[in-house]
């Protein structure tokens, strides 16, 4: 541990144990505000920093002069798409507008803070958020994914909460593409390596393979944290004279936005060459930081706190200052560095991980130091809160930044990007599966249907993902009540009462491609359904909106439609969006990903002991299996269509009122102990749900779709593979059948008895109005086909990459 003193004591090298002292570098020019004002005509590298000319001119207007190199660096990162949401802001407003008081009754902190906070009752609050780390994970899969976990976890800590679980939502290119073999194993071990080390259970997620994600994998991470109400903290710097402190890891040259910023400073060849733009994670430092922060919160030693993520110190200082009294004075040479040659601009932009900034009252300084000493965390005092309304950053006493922090943090450019419905959209929607060539010669006989079920379950997107999830610790903490492969991850919050939360994230990019408005609502509907299937009462939504370039009006239309759909959907379901993340420019060589609006829903359990698992258990032999909901002819965008290489038509219709009723039934049935298993119907339809419920614990079933085909007027193929929404399968003891059907009848919701759990059969038997009368699939055979898909692709390559990493 070492502390670097305030300004002036830097020359006193005796204060440091780790040689953190350094002489002020003269290898680069320190450009002061005075110099910038005196030399207005100097050419500045705004374009290389990613700013547009109008944005650069706007900065000059705001400042009444040209910016210094350091100011330009700050504005460039804070006004970037990633930090300023400049293209998405005008649309995202709907999440705040399309709400009712009723929807926000449990909302303690809404959009705009590090993460939204929801009141869970009994004095508990929960905070959760999803964030993307797509591009870094493509460039360096292990570190990119690892720091994705690290970043989202720090967002949770900075609200005052203890992180309790993570989830991951992954999209990769074609499973057999060589680049998928490079990216996937690294991403998975990065997520595991970081999350496992932090002692956070990974309780679920999603994995999809589709060639549209080739060269544009998606790595979205969700973290959830819990706190007592009184522990809630916000990121603001209040209290004139309070101290600003930076603690955690040292600042290095990793994660500096475009390295082009180096062009803004003169430097020589002695400087380390271009540094990686991907951050490097250190989970041990983060673990120590978590415990250290929680102790700071517990002892009420910090007034405000902000994690350092994107845009590093630029973001932390400007956000803390503008959310508080509006002024801050910082001496930048007090920042502890890993690399003493960093320029002021680089220090301001560095995205080195495992750092936090806090505001501490003078009275608490000694106690703060004691906590740092206990956890062995390095820190340095950077400056203090002022009431000047200015963020002043000095370099060895010379002013290099003098700005209104609001102009950096909140008054960035806002664009009404042009958008229009793509010309190809109508054509794509007209190309329905049924009328396509791919939709001909569909399976009709018992043999063909049985083979189709096995084919479906052994396709990359329906296959067993335990090759991935077995690399994640799902037990640590001792409070995991459900995790992958169940519909939702469930975590107990209060060990006395059993109070807890259920979480699910979903998105089907194929649906969103066919119709982004509906696609976003389908993502919401599925996440909602998953949460209610587990028995939790939905409370809040977080999203991670992954799209291509907003500068393409057709992509912008997809984005606008998806946001509109999601905001309307949340209003219909009565649950608010509490926060989220936008990831744009997910395209390579002009080819964009499918619009992928990932939606996470968080629900509440009064007692997680009531949660419903997704499969038939051995002791449930003879239980009745019911299908809830109605099946229509909805094969467009389906997994079966994907198997035949087809994508066209319109996605399944959304009926949020039906989803809500279905949710109420599932929640009540779980609460009253009526059902012992429940699984939602989504990708792969009834066939997949039946297979998954049997594969979960290796317990078979005997069902018939004769009545289903008759009641809903569909053929056997459609009954099995259609992806109609608002459906679920449940299993319940025969003694509960009457009570259960009374409930569904009272709510006017279709429920049909399909058959029974058959623990002894070791297979799935389905009878129906088709040639042959029934087909049976042995569970051993099915499990073999289903579980060998990922190992056959990734076992060897994982061993090779890990061996290389180990040698390093």
């Amino acid at each position, binding site marked *: 541990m070492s502390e670097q003193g305030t300004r002036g004591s830097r020359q006193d090298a005796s204060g440091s144990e780790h040689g953190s002292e350094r002489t002020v570098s003269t290898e680069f020019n320190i450009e002061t505000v005075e110099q910038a004002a005196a030399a207005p005509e100097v050419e500045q590298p705004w374009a290389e920093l990613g700013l547009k000319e109008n944005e650069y001119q706007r900065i000059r207007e705001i400042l009444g002069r040209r910016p210094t190199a350091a100011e330009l660096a700050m504005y460039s990162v804070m006004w970037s798409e990633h930090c300023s949401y400049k293209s998405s802001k005008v649309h995202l407003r709907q999440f705040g507008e399309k709400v009712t008081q009723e929807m926000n009754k449990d909302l303690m902190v809404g959009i705009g803070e590090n993460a939204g906070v929801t009141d869970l009752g009994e004095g508990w609050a929960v905070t959760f958020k999803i964030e993307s780390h797509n591009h870094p994970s493509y460039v360096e899969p292990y570190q990119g994914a690892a720091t994705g976990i690290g970043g989202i976890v720090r967002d949770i800590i900075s609200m005052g909460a203890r992180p309790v679980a993570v989830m991951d939502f992954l999209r990769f290119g074609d499973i057999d593409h060589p680049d998928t073999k490079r990216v996937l194993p690294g991403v998975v*071990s990065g997520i*595991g*390596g970081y999350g*496992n*080390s932090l*002692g956070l259970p990974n309780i679920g997620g999603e994995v999809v393979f589709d060639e549209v994600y080739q060269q544009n994998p998606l790595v979205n991470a969700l973290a959830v944290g819990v706190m007592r109400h009184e522990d809630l903290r916000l990121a603001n710097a209040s209290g004139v004279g309070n101290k600003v402190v930076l603690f955690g890891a040292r600042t290095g040259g990793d994660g500096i936005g475009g390295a082009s910023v180096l062009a803004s400073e003169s430097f020589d060849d002695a400087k380390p060459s271009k540094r990686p733009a991907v951050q490097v994670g*250190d*989970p*041990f*430092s983060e*673990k120590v930081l978590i415990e250290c922060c929680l102790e700071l919160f517990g002892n009420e030693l910090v007034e405000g706190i902000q994690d350092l993520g994107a845009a590093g110190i630029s973001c932390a200082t400007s956000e803390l200052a503008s959310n508080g009294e509006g002024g801050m004075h910082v001496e930048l040479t007090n920042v502890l560095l890993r690399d003493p040659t960093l320029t002021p601009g680089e220090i301001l932009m560095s995205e080195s991980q495992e750092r936090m900034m806090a505001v501490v009252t003078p009275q608490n300084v000694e106690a703060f130091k004691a906590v740092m000493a206990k956890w062995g965390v390095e820190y340095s005092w950077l400056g203090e809160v002022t009431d000047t309304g200015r963020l002043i950053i000095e370099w060895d006493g010379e002013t290099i930044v003098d700005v209104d922090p609001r102009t950096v943090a909140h008054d960035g450019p806002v664009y009404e990007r042009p958008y229009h419905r793509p010309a190809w959209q109508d054509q794509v929607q007209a190309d329905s599966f049924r009328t396509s060539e791919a939709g001909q010669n569909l399976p009709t006989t018992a043999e063909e249907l049985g083979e189709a079920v096995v084919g479906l379950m052994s396709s990359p997107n329906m296959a067993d993902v335990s090759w991935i*999830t*077995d*690399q*994640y*610790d*799902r*037990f*640590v903490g*001792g*409070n*995991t*009540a459900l995790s992958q492969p169940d519909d939702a991850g469930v975590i*107990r919050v209060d060990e006395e009462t059993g109070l807890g939360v259920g979480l699910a994230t979903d998105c089907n990019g194929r649906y969103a491609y066919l119709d982004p408005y509906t696609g976003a609502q389908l993502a919401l509907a599925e996440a909602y359904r998953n949460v209610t299937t587990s028995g939790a009462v939905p409370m809040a939504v977080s999203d991670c909106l992954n799209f291509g370039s907003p500068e393409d009006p057709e992509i912008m239309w997809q984005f606008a439609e998806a946001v509109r759909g999601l905001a309307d959907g949340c209003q219909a379901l009565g649950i608010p969006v509490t926060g989220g993340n936008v990831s744009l420019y997910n395209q390579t060589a002009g080819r964009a990903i499918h619009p992928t609006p990932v939606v996470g829903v968080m629900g509440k359990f009064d007692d*997680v*002991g009531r949660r419903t*698992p997704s499969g038939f*258990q*051995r*002791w449930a032999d003879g239980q009745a299996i019911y299908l809830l909901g109605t099946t229509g002819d909805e094969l467009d965008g389906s997994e079966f269509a994907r198997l035949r290489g087809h994508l066209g038509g319109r996605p399944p219709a959304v009926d949020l009122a039906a989803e809500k009723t279905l949710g109420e039934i599932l929640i009540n049935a779980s609460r009253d102990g009526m059902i012992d298993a429940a699984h939602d119907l989504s990708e792969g339809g009834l066939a997949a749900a039946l297979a998954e419920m049997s594969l979960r*614990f290796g317990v078979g079933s005997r069902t018939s779709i004769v009545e289903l085909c008759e009641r809903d007027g569909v053929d056997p193929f459609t009954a099995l593979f259609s992806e109609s929404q608002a459906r679920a399968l449940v299993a319940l003891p025969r003694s509960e059948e009457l009570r259960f059907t009374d409930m569904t009848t009272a709510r006017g919701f279709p429920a049909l008895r399909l058959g029974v759990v058959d623990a002894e059969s070791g297979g799935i038997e389905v009878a129906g109005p088709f040639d042959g009368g029934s087909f049976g699939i042995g569970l051993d055979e099915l499990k073999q086909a289903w579980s060998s898909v990922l190992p056959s692709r990734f*076992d060897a390559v*994982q*061993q090779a990459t*890990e*061996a290389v990493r*180990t040698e390093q």
Partner: protein
Amino acid sequence: MPLWHAGQSLHGVDAVVLPGGFSYGVYLRAGAIARFAPVMETVVKEAGAAASSSPLPVLGICNGFPILTEAQLLPGSMIKNDHLKFLCKDQVLRVENNQTVWTSQFTDNELITVPMKNQDGHYVVSAEELERIEAESRVVFRYVGANPNGSRHGIAGVTNERGNVVGLMPHPEHAVEAGYGPDDAIGMREGTDGLTIFTSVVSSLAGDTT
């Protein structure tokens, strides 16, 4: 009662559990740095006290196991799993020694299911030492079924000569509460086989004081 790594005092506790985790990030070798924690000096002294009739019971779980081997309270060492991946699964173990203070309430050769989750669970030990611990019945837990990580002789846990120090890679503390444990014959997450480890030591200690 939590013990702090930087202090030497055991605060009068009757037994010590070194839990799992990634001490010092496992950036060097599992347990290699943690064994130098000041509190470990006292643990080593009290657990290895040759003169004492009742040396301190110590249990090392997962990362706690290599801390005990690094501290030379237990033989052998831990390296990366042979498949090089982190692996989390419900694991069946056979209790081969029910004479230790931590296993006295298991029946002989009892099969138990507890979660296992690690990246460095591959137990290695020299050929002579391996022969010796086998001969002295110091293998406490052995993996049943396929060897999950390449451990020598499928060893999951061992004890010292006096049976007061036990280390194992799987996590008995994750199989102590129905609803949050491994799957077992009764149902999902219902497994509580790990509980016996803790009731064994409590009963041994209770026996000591009476």
